[in-house]
Structure formats: structure tokens, C-alpha cells
């Protein structure tokens, strides 16, 4: 390997990321070649400059703020899923209650609104219609 080829591998050699065969060529070359030795030294110096930069440290309350934010996130997610699920449940429950109550006239909420139509037989269209209207007005 010539000096140009050696220098292209010096970065990986510095990081111990070369295979044994290549490393075994580079080490002895650096020892006997002043130019490559100087080049290698400069590369290590660059790493030293970067490593020597002051380490950025978080404030003392950073961890507690992050944990609090995470707990708020999970609480909100829990509330949202509860609201969505409970909303679905309420709608389905209401639908089935309305359907089942059609088959039990008089056993559910007051059918006062049907007094005018008391001659409507159960399960007739008029009976069902006013039953639903009556339930809707009561918020069921």
C-alpha cells in the first residue's frame, strides 16, 4: 500500500475498525513514514478538539419535567380512549334499549306522549314512531 492508500485508512485504523490484515500493514508504515505519522497525529488532534468541547449538561429539573410530561401524555391518551369507548358504548346501549323497549310497551319510560294515540296497537308504525320520539325528548 502506498502513502495515499494508507492515509485513506488512517481514520478507520484510529477507530480500530479495520480487519487484522489491513491493520497489520498500517501500524508499521506509520512508524517508519514521518509524513503519514504526522497526518495520523493531526487526525487524532481533530478528534481531541471535538472531544474537548465542554459537555452540554441538562438542568437539574430536566428529568422530572420529562417524566411529568410523559405522565400527562399517558393520562390524556387514557382520557381520550375512555371518552371514545364510552361514547361508542353509550350509543350502542341506547340503540339496543330503544329496540328492546319497542317489544315491551309500557314497561319502559312513560308513554304519556302516546296517550293521544292509545288506540295504536303495539308494534304498529305509529306506535313505534311516537315511542322513539318520546324517548328522544327524554334524552334516551
Amino acid at each position: 500500500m502506498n502513502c495515499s492508500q494508507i492515509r485513506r485508512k488512517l481514520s478507520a485504523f484510529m477507530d480500530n475498525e479495520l480487519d487484522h490484515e489491513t491493520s497489520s500493514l498500517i501500524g508499521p508504515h506509520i512508524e517508519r513514514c514521518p509524513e503519514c505519522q504526522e497526518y495520523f497525529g493531526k487526525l487524532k488532534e481533530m478528534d481531541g478538539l471535538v472531544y474537548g468541547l465542554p459537555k452540554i449538561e441538562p438542568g437539574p429539573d430536566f428529568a422530572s419535567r420529562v417524566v411529568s410530561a410523559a405522565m400527562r401524555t399517558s393520562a390524556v391518551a387514557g382520557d381520550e380512549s375512555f371518552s371514545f369507548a364510552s361514547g361508542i358504548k353509550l350509543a350502542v346501549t341506547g340503540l339496543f334499549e330503544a329496540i328492546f323497549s319497542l317489544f315491551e310497551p309500557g314497561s319502559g319510560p312513560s308513554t304519556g306522549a302516546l296517550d293521544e294515540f292509545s288506540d295504536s296497537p303495539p308494534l304498529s308504525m305509529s306506535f313505534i314512531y311516537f315511542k322513539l320520539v318520546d324517548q328522544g325528548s327524554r334524552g334516551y
Partner: protein
Amino acid sequence: MVDPDLALVEAIGRCDHKAFESLVKRYQGPLLNFITRYIGDRRIAEDLAQEVFLRIYRAAPRFQARTKVSTWIFRIAYNQALTEIGRRRRHQDLREALCRRSEGGAERPPSQPAARYELEEEIAPALARLPDNQKAALLLRVNEELSYREIGEILGVSVQSVESLLFRARTSLKRYFDKT
């Protein structure tokens, strides 16, 4: 070799807040250091670091240990930082941000020794001139001592690409300081 952080992540997946706090304390320094040096803005870096940890918290139940936890964490951080850089570029703020001295360097903190301040003044502009992927590779290698394979997983490139990125980053820095 068992990943020492795997048990923590599994506990976080079971909503163990103590485990989450332990993970945060373990990685808050390295993460904040990496993001700050990468994007050059301490204030935004703290927000990004918090966002990284929140993403970890949400994703912990789905973590499948196909990679080391540390690699996973830095990958999320790198992606967040890239998104921020992209956002700033779109607003044409990046050049000003990169040329502007970092918050820690705009005025020398009274507690910071003169030599360290001068070092930061020297190296920060040189780092800022590196392409994003070279800078990321160099920071991860020098500060976190990650292997080429780990760096490749974080940056989404091959080991050979990592070798090339580091070679070019170091020679670019060398050329910069040879001229100054």
C-alpha cells in the same frame, strides 16, 4: 452480551415511571450534548431532547430489541434533529443559526475557563461547516464511542459509508485548521 438498558425499556413498556426516569437520567446528558452540538442551538436542543424521550415512552411497548437500546435512542434523536434542521432550512434560518455562536459561546460563562471558551470558539465554526451526515458521524464516534455498525444503524447507512464519512469529516477539519 445482554443490553443493560433492555430491562428498563421493558419496564417502561409496562408504564413503570421509575424505570422511565432512570432511562432519562442515564441518557439526558449524552442526548442533549449530541443534539446541541449537531444543531447548534441549546434552547431548541432541550425541546428536542424532551420530545425524543416522550417518543421513547410511547414506543417502549413496541420495542422489539432488534437493535441496542442506545442505538434506538440516538436514531430517534438524529431523526428529530434532522427534522429540525430541515425545518430551519425551509425558513432560511440555518445559515444564520450555524454562523451564530452557540448560546454557551455567545458570552463566556463566568464559570467556564478561558481555554475551554477559546476551544469552543475555535471548533464550533469548523464543526458547523461539515455536512450534516459527517458531523453526526463524527459526534457519535468521538463523544459516544459508538462502533461503525451502530453509527450506520443510527444514520441509516452502511459501515463503509460511515468509514467514508468519518474520514472526510476529519480531513475537512484538518484542512480547516491548517488554513487558520
